[in-house]
């Protein structure tokens, strides 16, 4: 996933997984900065930011915050209403855009997220249930840089979320314990619950489900076997996407938000001809 000396940007939510990931990477000696996105979801967002900042300040780490309201004039609840999309969908596309952008602008070698085995198995279940061919082809722990996207890695994919929570307790890491109020009842949690029920009767099934897919079935869904889209640069912000205007700029259009600033360098965002499987990968 990484090489010694790589600069890594960790997407920090203030929750157990991202803070555990940041802590583990630091312990391993990597040069790691954090990025927190304030989603404007009431106390949940401000409290989450508190834990992210507390972690960073206690260790003298660099943490950048992007505030959706002040920088883009919208928040997730407003974006969800304006776009008539589920809050988790609007949240996901916003964070993907902003994390990708920050990783590219900051010249980081990789963008790391705290997705764990439970997350990935639940996403896989959702994608299999709907046979989301393109999403399945993207569901891998490492996506190489290319096509205007940064390298993306999920170092915790072998750990259950119980293990990341336990790690935080044992390391004395305080994290956000409340769940997002807008996530209640989403499909992703339903898939997790279903898998936990199966795991209860058949221990190890989540691991064999996800890694069996990685080892044996993923090639069936890669670019050779499924539909591909050629990433093109958004005519407004320069980000890579599937249309003339990227999903984030289309969201801003609907919310009346501020357009993002143009790319720092067209060299890192120029139109490429290789689809490398970046973008959303889950049905939550």
């Amino acid at each position, binding site marked *: 996933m990484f090489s010694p000396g790589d600069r890594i940007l960790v997407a920090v939510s203030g*929750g*157990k997984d991202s803070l555990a990931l940041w802590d583990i990477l630091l312990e391993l000696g990597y040069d790691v900065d954090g990025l927190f996105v304030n989603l404007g979801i009431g106390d949940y967002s401000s409290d989450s930011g508190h834990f992210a900042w507390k972690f960073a300040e206690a260790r003298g780490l660099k943490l950048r915050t992007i505030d959706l309201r002040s920088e883009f004039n919208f928040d997730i609840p407003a974006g969800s209403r304006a776009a008539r999309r589920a809050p988790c969908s*609007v949240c996901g596309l916003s964070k993907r855009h902003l994390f990708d952008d920050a990783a590219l602008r900051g010249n980081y070698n990789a963008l790391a997220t705290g997705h764990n085995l439970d997350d990935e198995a639940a996403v896989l279940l959702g994608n299999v249930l709907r046979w989301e061919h393109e999403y399945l082809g993207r569901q891998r722990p490492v996506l190489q840089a290319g096509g205007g996207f940064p390298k993306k890695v999920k170092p915790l994919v072998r750990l259950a979320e119980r293990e990341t929570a336990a790690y935080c307790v044992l390391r004395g890491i305080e994290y956000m314990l409340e769940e997002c109020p807008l996530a209640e009842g989403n499909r992703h949690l339903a898939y*997790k*619950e279903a898998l*936990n029920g199966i795991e209860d009767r058949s221990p190890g099934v989540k691991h064999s489900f996800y890694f069996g897919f990685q080892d044996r079935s993923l090639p069936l869904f890669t670019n050779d076997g499924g539909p591909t889209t050629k990433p093109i640069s958004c005519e407004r912000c320069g980000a890579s996407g599937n249309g003339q205007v990227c999903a984030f700029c289309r969201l801003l259009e609907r919310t009346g938000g501020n357009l993002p600033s143009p790319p720092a360098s067209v060299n890192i965002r120029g139109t490429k001809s290789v689809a490398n499987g970046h973008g959303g*990968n889950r049905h939550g």
Partner: protein
Amino acid sequence: MLTVAGQRVIAGRLEMVRVSLRNPPRVLEFDGPVAVTTLLTKLDLRRDCVLVIRDGTLVPGDAMLEADAEVELRSVISGGADGR
């Protein structure tokens, strides 16, 4: 004393195992001593879905909680949007 499914709620008595939970935040009391597995069964919680925490450290699943123990049951399940 309010009783919910055999659990005595906020009684504040000694000789009870006090268990704090979240979402919603509440404290339940159980007759002690009680095994962690028994406690989880009474609360209909899966072992894989919670941590049992006492004095800032983890309590093993096969532990026995003495009568005056105070523990936190912390859910480990989180979920929402992609892109963390």
